[in-house]
């Protein structure tokens, strides 16, 4: 997950340790510098630089009119962004925490997702909605929801979630440049994950809509995204001792969904586990498992399994380690893939 060095304009730029938070901030900065129509707005994004400091320095560099502290009202923020986009701007909205985005759902569902369709293509809305999501940071209630299933179920939205520092930068740049609205889910427990990364010459990443094989293997495929990618990578390393050679697919984009990469992997390995921390019932894993079954039925040696968060409201922080799928739960699922032996 690292780039040693990258080349820019003939000179070699040395990669340094950078966090995902820094890469996201850099992506916002570079987008704003490149395109004057890019505007950042949200709660505390200006003077404070955001509660996670993602927007740090943007107001200072570009002025309050391009990085704007808004009144505290998510529907108003996203609704205003709709109007700004109607007039030709590219708003990037920050929803401070996952569960704080719910007041803006009507704007997102009724207008952001549908405006291109309602107007017969005359009025696309290039809005990026940044949502720090998921648990694992010890947040109290309403600070750790995984809301991706709601967004995935809404046609008209792209749903993107990076798991690496490179993708955080590359996917956010692409989301802002996209003429379609993008819900950009930021796995907040990976904000401080590091990679050797060159801000001056960032490595190119696969575009939105493509999944990437992060680890090649032959025995089974772990399909995951965002905060669960490091869990799956660790599980794959641990599984070697058990004789399992696991492939790990990072989806990167939930909508559009990369059926091809996923199906190709499962056809190779014949076994699949979908791993995410949002609740399993009605969650992304069910959709993904169904898609795999439809495409790869004759290649499957075992049912597609899901490792997900429990079907409970996000638990209090002192209990969240029992809720979040960890390495052991993934390895248990992998063990259950020995279907023939058990049945």
């Amino acid at each position: 997950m690292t780039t040693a060095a990258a080349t820019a304009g003939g000179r070699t730029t040395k990669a340094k340790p950078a966090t995902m938070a820094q890469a996201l901030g850099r992506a916002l900065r570079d987008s704003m510098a490149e395109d004057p129509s890019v505007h950042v707005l949200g709660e505390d994004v200006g003077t404070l630089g955001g509660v996670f400091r993602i927007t740090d320095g943007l107001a200072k560099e570009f002025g309050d009119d391009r990085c704007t502290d808004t009144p505290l009202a998510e529907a108003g923020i996203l609704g205003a962004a709709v109007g700004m986009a109607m007039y030709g701007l590219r708003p990037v909205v920050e929803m401070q925490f996952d569960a704080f985005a719910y007041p803006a759902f009507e704007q997102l569902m009724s207008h952001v997702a549908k405006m291109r369709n309602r107007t017969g293509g005359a009025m696309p809305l290039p809005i990026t909605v940044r949502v720090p999501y998921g648990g694992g940071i010890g947040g109290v209630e309403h600070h750790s929801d995984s809301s991706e299933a709601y967004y995935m179920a809404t046609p008209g939205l792209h749903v993107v979630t990076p798991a690496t520092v490179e993708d955080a930068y590359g996917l956010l740049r692409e989301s802002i440049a996209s003429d379609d609205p993008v819900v950009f889910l930021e796995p907040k427990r990976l904000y401080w994950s590091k990679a050797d990364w060159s801000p001056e010459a960032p490595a190119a990443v696969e575009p939105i809509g493509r999944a990437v094989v992060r680890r090649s293997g032959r025995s089974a495929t772990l399909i995951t995204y965002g905060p669960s990618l490091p869990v799956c990578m660790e599980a794959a390393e641990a599984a070697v001792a058990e004789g399992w050679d696991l492939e790990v697919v990072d989806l990167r984009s939930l909508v559009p969904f990369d059926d091809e990469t996923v199906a190709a992997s499962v056809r190779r390995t014949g076994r699949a586990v979908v791993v995410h921390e949002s609740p399993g019932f009605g969650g992304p894993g069910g959709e993904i498992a169904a898609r795999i079954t439809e495409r790869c039925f004759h290649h499957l040696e075992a049912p597609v399994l899901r490792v997900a968060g429990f079907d409970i409201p996000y638990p209090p922080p002192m209990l969240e380690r029992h809720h979040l799928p960890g390495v052991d739960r993934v390895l248990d699922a992998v063990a259950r893939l020995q279907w023939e032996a058990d049945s």
Partner: protein
Amino acid sequence: MTVQELPGAAAYRPTPPPAWKPITDPAPLLPDPEPYRVLGTDAVADADPELLLRLHAELVRGRRYNAQATALTKQGRLAVYPSSTGQEACEIAAALVLEERDWLFPSYRDTLAAVARGLDPVEALTLLRGDRHTGYDPREHRIAPLCTPLATQLPHAVGLAHAARLKGDDVVALAMVGDGGTSEGDFHEALNFAAVWKAPVVFLVQNNGFAISVPLAKQTAAPSLAHKAVGYGMPGRLVDGNDAAAVHQVLSEAVARARGGEGPTLVEAVTYRMDAHTNADDATRYRVDSEVEAWRAHDPVRLLERELLERGLLDEAGVERVKESAERMAAALRDGMNADPELAPMDLFTHVYAEQTSQLQAQAAALRAELDAEQDHDEHGTEAGR
């Protein structure tokens, strides 16, 4: 920070520490105790006769449009029509106060405002006919799509006006909402944002007495809807919504204020919905005939017509000419709506994303196959029948 200072670090200064200064005298923001009127008062002497004649002609056309569209629902040509009969003065004034570069944000009942602004009468009805959601290019006419969820278009108006001002454009947004819509959170958030940002927006509330069946008294405990403005720090104006000259004047002043950089205004036009909520509603369940009759005496078309006839600005022949023009419009609307719209099923997939996802490509292919099979079947069927 002003717009001119916009880019560059040198101009940056963080928001200063809070210095909360309450406005000790809210009086300048308060609406008049009674709705403002022009017709039948001394103020009418100052009104531009040409404007009054234009308002009259548009009101008559609007009334005829409502009648024609309602008739089309009975013939099954329209899925539904929320008539604005009785509210024509609000609709027409909203359209006529705006310059071409300005934007209108209508709700689902505001078809007339869109038509008076120049939209093709048939294109304006595609949403209600059911062939497409928005039958026009919003950017071409600077009319946002007719909005069905209540008050959700108001933040859009604020954002657009704000964006226009940031770009240095002299553009005002006028957003329309009903009395029921003022109870929605988006109404509150839009007004608050507009006031804080000093955005060039005018909010027009058409208080027509009922939110479907619920009267205003069960909707709000505020002294008037215009009073709500004070809490946001913007002026509220109360106007007789059946007095076209008054609505036009009050909205013109609000638009000028917005254009002059003085920020938003909330205008409450007190009017009455003469018809039911839509053709699917039974208004006799929640209101009495005597109330409707009382409002009939205050009909916006007759109020203006009487004024013009009394002052000799219009004669019976002039009234006839306006009626004939309205009849021609209605005939064109009938013809347009009686022509079956051409529907293209594959368009279902065309405007969801800039580029179709592979999921949509697969679904489009499946529908294409269904359509081809249907066509084959039809052709075969015809062959066999011969």
